[in-house]
């Protein structure tokens, strides 16, 4: 509890305390406007020289009241709002929401819809990880990988644009299935992209994985033990990098994931390098899923027969998907009307960011940026 009491004092007052050597501790404020805090995040660091003694994340700068809005929109009307939370991986948000409402309704999307959803979600995972890779490398000083990563991400966004008309906030899925059929060259585009991707990931790895400077900046930095990760509710690549082999896609499969073979990459030290390594490997596994799925798209309807007016019977459901950042959950309570009574989004970035305080203790200022980057947060999701 001592750490928490210190945090309370730290959070409420700007006292300058003295350290053992009699030197003052500085309180350094990073953000909310800062090139490296990945959105409007404010981090207050208490520094002893160059080392971080304690830290506090102040969030809420992007709070838009999405959960309140949900109570005043119908189920379908709310679907575009969920894209705007984790705006980097909009398709995953949409998948989670649509599947949660389908569970609430007792409907299931037809197989064709589920397979196409899987493909698009995995492409979105690759796109999210590419963006993460570029920005994380840029924070650490590698100026080049971001451009290569964005070059690949551009291909994915082109596929999304051809499919549903939007690149970023796609609203690709509908409750009950899909609205749009796959376009003519969809399979060919996906296959061509995936074939190329393996080589491109190798390119990024050449620049970073064995690079001495990269290792020096990321090995041993921001360590999060498995026990801490579980206690703090951390999920996603950060949890897997700490050694816990768990992925919602394997534990509680949804969409069409149980039809495909893929591995769950884990590492054991839970430092920044391991989180990097896990995400690179996840990109490869996503590519594997896409290649399998794209051979496997069955014929059939793309939309379940659930009617236009959705009034789920009163009750509640919690459904989660494995978003690129972690377990993205939707807890929806219905009171039998066309508007949900309560929609709660379980934001993976929010809980992952809570672990930052633990990870940053004892790190140096330059590491703080690396750690924030390696957690992979999107403030839209943290704040909703």
């Amino acid at each position, binding site marked *: 509890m001592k750490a928490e009491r210190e945090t309370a004092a730290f959070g409420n007052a700007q006292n300058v305390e003295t350290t053992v050597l009699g030197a003052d501790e500085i309180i350094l404020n990073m953000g909310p406007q800062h090139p490296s805090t990945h959105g409007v995040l404010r981090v207050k660091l208490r520094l002893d020289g160059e080392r971080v003694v304690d830290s506090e994340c102040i969030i809420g700068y992007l709070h838009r009241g999405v959960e309140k809005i949900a109570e005043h929109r119908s189920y379908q009307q709310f679907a575009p709002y969920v894209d705007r939370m984790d705006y980097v991986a909009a398709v995953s948000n949409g998948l989670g929401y649509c599947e949660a409402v389908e569970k609430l309704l007792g409907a299931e999307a037809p197989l064709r819809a589920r397979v196409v959803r899987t493909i698009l979600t995995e492409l979105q995972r690759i796109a999210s990880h590419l963006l993460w890779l570029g920005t994380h490398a840029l924070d650490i000083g590698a100026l080049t990988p971001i451009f290569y990563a964005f070059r690949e991400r551009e291909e994915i966004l082109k596929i999304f644009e051809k499919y549903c008309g939007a690149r970023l906030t796609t609203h690709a899925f509908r409750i009950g299935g899909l609205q749009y059929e796959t376009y003519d060259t969809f399979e060919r585009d996906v296959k061509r992209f995936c074939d190329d991707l393996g080589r491109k990931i190798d390119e990024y790895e050449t620049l970073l994985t064995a690079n001495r400077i990269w290792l020096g900046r990321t090995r041993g930095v921001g360590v999060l033990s498995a026990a801490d990760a579980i206690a703090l509710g951390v999920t996603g690549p950060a949890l897997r990098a700490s050694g816990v082999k768990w992925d919602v896609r394997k534990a509680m499969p949804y969409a069409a994931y149980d039809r495909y073979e893929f591995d769950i990459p884990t590492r054991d030290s839970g430092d920044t390098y391991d989180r990097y390594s896990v995400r690179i490997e996840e990109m490869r596994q996503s590519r594997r899923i896409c290649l399998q799925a794209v051979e496997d798209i069955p014929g059939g309807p793309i939309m379940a027969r659930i009617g236009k007016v959705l009034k789920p019977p009163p009750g509640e459901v919690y459904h989660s998907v494995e978003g690129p950042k972690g377990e993205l959950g939707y807890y929806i309570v219905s009171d039998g009307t066309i508007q949900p009574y309560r929609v709660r989004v379980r934001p993976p970035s929010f809980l992952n960011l809570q672990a930052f305080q633990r990870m940053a203790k004892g790190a140096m200022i330059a*590491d703080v940026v690396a750690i924030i980057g390696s957690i992979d947060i999107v403030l839209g999701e943290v704040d909703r």
Partner: protein
Amino acid sequence: MSHLIPSSILPLVVPVLCAVVIVLVLPLLAGYIVLVERKVMAGMQARLGPMRVGPHGLLQPIADALKLVLKEDIIPARADKVMFWLAPLVSVTMALLAYSALPIGPAFQIADLNVGLLFIVAVSSLGIYGIVLGGWASNSHYSLLGAMRSAAQLVSYETAGGLALASVLLLAGSLSMKDIVQAQLDQGIWFAFYVPFGFFIYLVASIAETNRAPFDLPEADSEIVAGYMTEYSGFRWSLYFLAEYANMIIVAGIATTLFLGGWLRPLARYRDHFPGTSVELLDAVPPLLALAVALYCFHLAPKQPVKIQKLVMAGAGGACAVVALALAGALFAPASVMQGVHGAFWFLLKVFTYIYAFMWFRFTFPRYRFDQLMRLGWRFLIPLALVNVIGVGIAIVLREQFDWNPFLSLVPTTLATLGVAMWLVNDDAPAAAANLEATIAQSGDGE
């Protein structure tokens, strides 16, 4: 003309002219080096770089310079005004002053000091004052942190670089830049091959000296905004910027003079002539090179999409052709002119290659964290440089006292230095220890 000028001032005319040329040309040159860097950066990042301002962005430096000059001069409210004004001046003055002893070819040197190298290194060190003063005067956390880090980094790597230079001096026997080049000519080999570790150490130290990636933490955007330059904008900032690029050219110049043979042609001792003329075979290489580049530009010109780009490419080809003509013409001119022109060509080529290597490193490697940077300087480079100097000393003793073949004398000492380098590089203990400290601090405070 010489009868028009009083004889007391005559010896000063050429140096003053050179100085004026340097002070005028350098900002423009620095601007165009920035453009080249941006184009090179873009090429490595699969994009185009500046394209809008002038064809292929050729007028970009002019636009940037104009913008900076016309910008509002903002001084932070509680900044120390005198120091704030003085700091960039110190940086720029020292950077420009160092050019006075730098030989750009055998004919173009403002002052041929007999302690030329010492002068340049000393003056470059004074440039650190500009950084520290700038950080202090800005009255801002970020700036002060950046300035202190920068100063510590520069001082540490000066030591390593200086020791690397010392190893070359032992071989050259003189501090005068001209004499060092002459020594390379006499000994028939560039010192980079004689003392490869010296070259390597100086390469790394010079990157750190100029605050370039991977040692650019003090100016890293993502961490402390721009370090000591944070509060500077407009013209004052451009002075710092100019100082940085001028420094880059100086260290490239030093490296070229000391390690890469200065203005010497590669294989300078191969003196075979074209039959019947006094033109050396290898001296025909520069004009042929320039001609090849010109022809390539002419070849590319029709393929450019836009008319103005065609014109500019053709113009570039034309410029290269003019250079080729000048170089060819110089072949038939008196020896001193020939030396001057060709020497300048080779010198500039080598300097540019060195700077290109700087750019290459910048866009390939991530940034070192500050403590890792200092550790690299003090625990790797300086011990290595010391060992290197001792090795070269031993090699010289072997050569002079025991009449060993010069190459042979250097081989064992270079190998010994290599062994030390491998040992030092793999001595990961301190780095791992630092990260381990952090882990222990974390887990100790956890519940």
